[in-house]
């Protein structure tokens, strides 16, 4: 870094700026849109100068959408709540099941262990639409359609393989000797799992949890088919803005801003764990 010439620094700065602009522009534009009315959004040519309005947010929070055809009820806040609930509980369940399983797969090679682990991963191979039809049938027979329980169960298809395979790698990276040393010092295998394996794989578990949360949050098709309006997350709920009298761009933008806020906040918070996770290798041995 110190050996960089001013020219190199300049080029580097330009390159970084281009990348940031490329990735951040849509988000910034959406953010600006969320404070505008449909008229200012749709004017030609577009402009960044406008009188900001909080109407879009107000409409979302009160649940009353004013359209040319009259007032429309939307359940956006409920959808947001559903998203939070479904994602948090799904990830929690997946962590609870996946982390011990990952440890077992990492440390104990038993007959068929690779096959079981691969089968779990293969759930990610199949396109969701392929399993949806039979799943819908089963869920109707079992009385699971349109229940949180059923949705969380289906979300395990997304979360569990992800957590299992990422965390397994982190457990495998921990030197077995470190765990042996703790056992020999007189601690049970469970204490060793809790005090040695879990903290050392912590950053990996946090990263996997975060990734699983984002995947769960962004899921669309499972919830679309298996849940009705009162159980649907924001991804499905956003369809409500496409109304008979037009598309409410301002509200959509505000909804997007609200719905990416939790994942963004979580990612920023978890960032330090992710960095720790990457540098774990440096302190081994």
């Amino acid at each position, binding site marked *: 870094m110190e050996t960089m010439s001013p020219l190199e620094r300049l080029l580097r700065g330009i390159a970084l700026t281009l990348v940031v602009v490329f990735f951040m522009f849509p988000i910034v534009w959406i953010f600006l849109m969320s404070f505008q009315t449909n008229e200012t959004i749709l004017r030609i040519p577009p402009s960044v100068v406008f009188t900001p309005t909080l109407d879009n947010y107000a409409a979302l929070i009160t649940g009353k959408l004013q359209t040319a055809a009259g007032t429309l009820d939307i359940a956006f806040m409920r959808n947001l709540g559903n998203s939070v609930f479904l994602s948090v509980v799904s990830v929690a369940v997946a962590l609870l099941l996946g982390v011990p399983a990952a440890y077992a797969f990492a440390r104990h090679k038993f007959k068929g262990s690779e096959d079981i682990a691969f089968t779990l991963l293969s759930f990610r191979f199949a396109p969701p639409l392929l399993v949806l039809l039979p799943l819908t049938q089963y869920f109707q027979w079992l009385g699971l359609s349109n229940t949180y329980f059923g949705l969380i169960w289906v979300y395990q298809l997304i979360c569990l393989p992800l957590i299992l395979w990422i965390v397994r790698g982190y457990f495998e990276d921990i030197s077995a000797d470190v765990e042996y*040393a703790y056992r020999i*010092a*007189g601690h049970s*295998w469970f204490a060793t799992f809790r005090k040695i394996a879990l903290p050392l794989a912590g950053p990996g578990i946090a990263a996997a949890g975060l990734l699983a949360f984002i995947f769960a949050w962004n899921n669309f098709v499972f919830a679309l088919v298996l849940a009705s309006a009162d159980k649907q997350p924001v991804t499905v709920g956003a369809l409500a803005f496409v109304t008979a009298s037009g598309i409410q761009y301002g509200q959509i933008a505000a909804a997007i801003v609200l719905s990416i806020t939790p994942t963004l906040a979580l990612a920023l918070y978890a960032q330090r764990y992710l960095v720790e996770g990457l540098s774990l290798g*440096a302190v081994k*041995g």
Partner: protein
Amino acid sequence: MTTLQLKNIVKRYKSQTVLDDLSLDVADGERLVLFGPSGAGKTVLLRLVAGVVDPDEGQVLIGGADMTDVDAEYRGVGMAFQNFALFPHMSAFDNIASALTARRSSKEAIAAGVGKVAKLLKIDHVLTHHPKALSNGQKQRTALARALVGSPPLLLLDDPLRNVDAKLRFEMRLELPRLLAAQGATVIYVTQDYKEAMALGDRIAVMFEGRIRQIGTPADIYNTPAEIEIARLFGDPTINLLDVVPQRGPDGAFVELSGVRLRLPGFGPEIVGKACVLGIRPESIAFTDASAPGAIPVTVEAETPLNEKTVTLTLTARRREILVSRPAGTPGPQTGPAHLAVNSRATLLFDKENGRLMRPSELASKRNGEAA
């Protein structure tokens, strides 16, 4: 202090047999060194005793009690790993204390215990550091402290000096015997360094390919290695090994080096004509005058000064290499022809076919038996 017995231990990984019907007895308070090249199965054996690896067959008895199916945490052994295996997320203090927290000792007792062993190992000033902030030597001492702190009756040390620099290794080699004696534990010490083995062991068990090939005091192993391979591993410079075929002489068997007869004391006609390997330690050979009886003419090829000794490479008339070692500072020829005197009592004769040491006394008694 306690005893350790291994009975007919077999350990396989997939199709490979790592420990092959191995039995071993370690006496109360004994310091046994497991010595052998890498891949001999030393570390697996140690882990098996610690209880983190299970044998496929055989029994592990600690203090006379069968521990074969007992989990590691109930065996009450202390172990130091070659790669230290410190807990990276804990301070040096917590690392060492881990052996005490499992016993639910009081906080004061833990602090006192850790403080005592840390002082002994001179790491009391770095106890708050995490492993990544410790030097290699401090890491190694922390790992050792963790093994020692609970005063385990059986202490397993897996090549603890392997990963530290030469200076520290030398220091610790001097310090360890005192430390281990103060501990009063039965010790099994794994190493690949013959000097360490000789310095630390009451007895040395030499391992090859999953078997103990010879077990005895350091002097036993050095003076009467049971096999060529063992002779080759002990001693620096390496023992001279020459293919010979003994011949019959008027007073027992002899071999020829540069056309000069070298007597093989104690050996008789039974070895005449047999393909053998003659082992002569470089320090059992000295330069001598041409006029001395039995002086072997050689050509000096090269001289290598090592710290405390000087090693000379010489060639016999048939251009066979012989290394000669003498204390540094003593005079010796630099180049050209020279003569060697071999201490024939210190020579070793191995059967070329199976590599085993041939002992004159056994052969002599066998001969007597046949005669009777």
